[in-house]
């Protein structure tokens, strides 16, 4: 077992993180709410990084590269539908939607879209216009055509997985910001980090992020021989865990930053507002859990006691 990223992937992750950070990070994302040039620059940068040359569906190294790229995008609140474009079908971005209330993040960008629900049912979406939403400022309502066949289950799975890597990046960045804040912010004559309650909150958030990171690595590198139903359950497990971690870490971040964390001057506010659609859509954690219930019964939600005996 080797739980560390391969060296070349780790190097690519570092380059991607640096390059995306150079775009301006959350403050650029904030600017993108009113200036479309930022989103165009984001795409240019992704192209220069080779994002759209990656064969994310069939080359395992490319999938891993896409994962760390999504992680970097999450950390910088990159205002671009990266996962959707990485999984484009015939040049049209793939959006995962809830067919009852379809919403597409960055759905106002030029270019075609394909929509699919978690069952893989395919629709032709008609994105509407941007609203002035605080939470998910790039989210647009959409109308869907009647079902038009299906998209591969593997695409839905990979969408959930890469989206979870984006969430992971955002949460790691939040923890970094919180850590810096409580180290330097002095109250009652000492840094916040000296208070045990603060230490415990940081520790619990760190455990949540560490657990998500390990689960994200494990899920993205499952062997190709893993049965399709197990892979689908794995993807749901990861997204459920990512969404749970997001709620915990963002809550902790707001609490520890105090009023500052609600201000757009603070990166926490932007990271939170821009990441909300990622972990709320297309399904709540409750719905994700319900979807996994059959997997307990039929063994697709694997444990140490699944048959055949799991080797990891």
């Amino acid at each position, binding site marked *: 077992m080797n739980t560390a990223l391969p060296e070349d992937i780790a190097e690519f992750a570092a380059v991607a993180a640096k390059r995306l950070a150079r775009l301006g990070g959350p403050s650029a994302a904030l600017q993108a709410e009113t200036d479309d040039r930022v989103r165009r620059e984001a795409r240019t940068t992704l192209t220069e990084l080779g994002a759209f040359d990656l064969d994310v569906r069939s080359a395992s190294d490319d999938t891993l590269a896409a994962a760390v790229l999504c992680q970097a995008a999450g950390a910088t609140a990159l205002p671009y539908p990266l996962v959707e474009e990485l999984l484009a079908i015939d040049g049209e971005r793939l959006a995962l939607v809830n067919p009852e209330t379809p919403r597409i993040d960055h759905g106002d960008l030029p270019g075609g879209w394909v929509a699919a629900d978690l069952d893989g049912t395919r629709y032709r979406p008609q994105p509407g216009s941007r609203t002035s939403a605080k939470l998910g400022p790039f989210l647009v309502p959409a109308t869907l055509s009647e079902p038009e066949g299906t998209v591969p289950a593997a695409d839905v799975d990979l969408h959930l997985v890469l989206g979870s890597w984006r969430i992971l990046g955002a949460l790691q960045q939040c923890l970094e910001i919180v850590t810096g804040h409580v180290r*330097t912010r002095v109250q009652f004559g000492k840094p916040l980090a000296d208070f045990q309650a603060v230490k415990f909150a*940081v520790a619990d958030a760190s455990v949540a992020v560490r657990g998500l990171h390990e689960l994200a690595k494990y899920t993205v590198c499952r062997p190709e021989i893993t049965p399709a139903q197990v892979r689908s359950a794995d993807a749901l497990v990861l997204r459920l*865990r990512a969404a749970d971690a997001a709620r915990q870490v963002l809550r902790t971040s707001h609490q520890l930053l105090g009023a500052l964390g609600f201000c757009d001057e603070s990166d926490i506010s932007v990271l939170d507002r821009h990441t909300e659609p990622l972990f709320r859509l297309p399904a709540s954690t409750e719905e994700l859990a319900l979807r996994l219930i059959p997997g307990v019964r039929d063994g697709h939600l694997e444990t140490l006691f699944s048959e055949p005996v799991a080797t990891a």
Partner: protein
Amino acid sequence: MDYDLGPDAGELRKRLRQLISTHIPAGFLGACTDDPQDLATTESFCKLLASEGLLALAWPKEHGGGGGSIWQQTVLREEMWAHHEPRGPQYMGINWVGPAVMRYGTPEQKAQHLSAIAAGEVIWCQGFSEPEAGTDLASLRTRAVPDGDGWRITGQKVWTSYAQMASRCVLAACTDPEASKSRRLTLFLIPMDRPGITVRPIRSMLGPHHLNEVFLDGVQAFRDEVLGEVGDGWRVMREALAFERVGIARYARCESLLDRMRAELGDDWDRLPESIRARWVRALVDLRAARLLAYRAVSLLDEPSAGAAASAARIAATTCDQQVAELLFDVLGPSALDSGASAPLHGAIEDHWRYAQAATVASGTIEVQRMLVAHDVLGDHR
């Protein structure tokens, strides 16, 4: 990057499960029960594992071990804990006492103790905690006063698991009360039948043998019984416990109980309230994360970040223990409180709930684990 435990992990798992199903009686809940036969079962099982080279699987061959990998050791740890630790109290000798003797022991100590542990012939207990020193071990008060060529040890230990069963004890005592906290303590390898040692069991909700008091009244200790150097006990204790920092594979017991309960319920599982089944899913999700955190900690070996990684894994696993305990109690309803052979899963769920209450207390409280993780994240910020 891969999460493969190795080419022989599956075979090892199967072999261990075969041995357990053949030699461990149905309804076995560990050595800490009122039935003395359970302790006897663990003793014979340890000898069986030793004969197959599986007891000290990851020890070097020169010390009677199997020379196995850390991942084989991980499989062993998972299968043993999942099946109510059929090695009984001897897991402690294997997991940290032996490795500590390998690192700090004299050639004579190695010769005396390692082969006995590897052969499954000795039970050790750990004389650390005291009435006034639980989590804060460096402040313990048991005194070792120089006497001839050795010491006389007087004091009291508490919460000492397996003290009634054990033939030997790793005993921490203060040899220099004037020294700094890090230089006060010395570790001794003491036989439990030495005059002056009195063990008194403490009745508890955990069951017999888990908790004891050990009274030390002028117990003689010899110079060749010191583990490491005099005054270096704090460092030895900390580093020795690092051998076992990942802790027991609590997630494996939880996954096992959920699997057995689901099988026991059969089609009735589908008739459980949806809210319960959703909690079941969440428990399995959390357990997977806890298992992967443990693997991460194991993979880091002696790297500086391994300690915090292990603490993170312990926080995740111990909270899962309690989460699963509550879930299974809610699944069972009123019969959850039943114990004994006629209770659901032969009382394994009731037993798990009781033991899970100690998960966030034993072997380093969850508060201490949080402090260690916080220190890793926050560093020295002043």
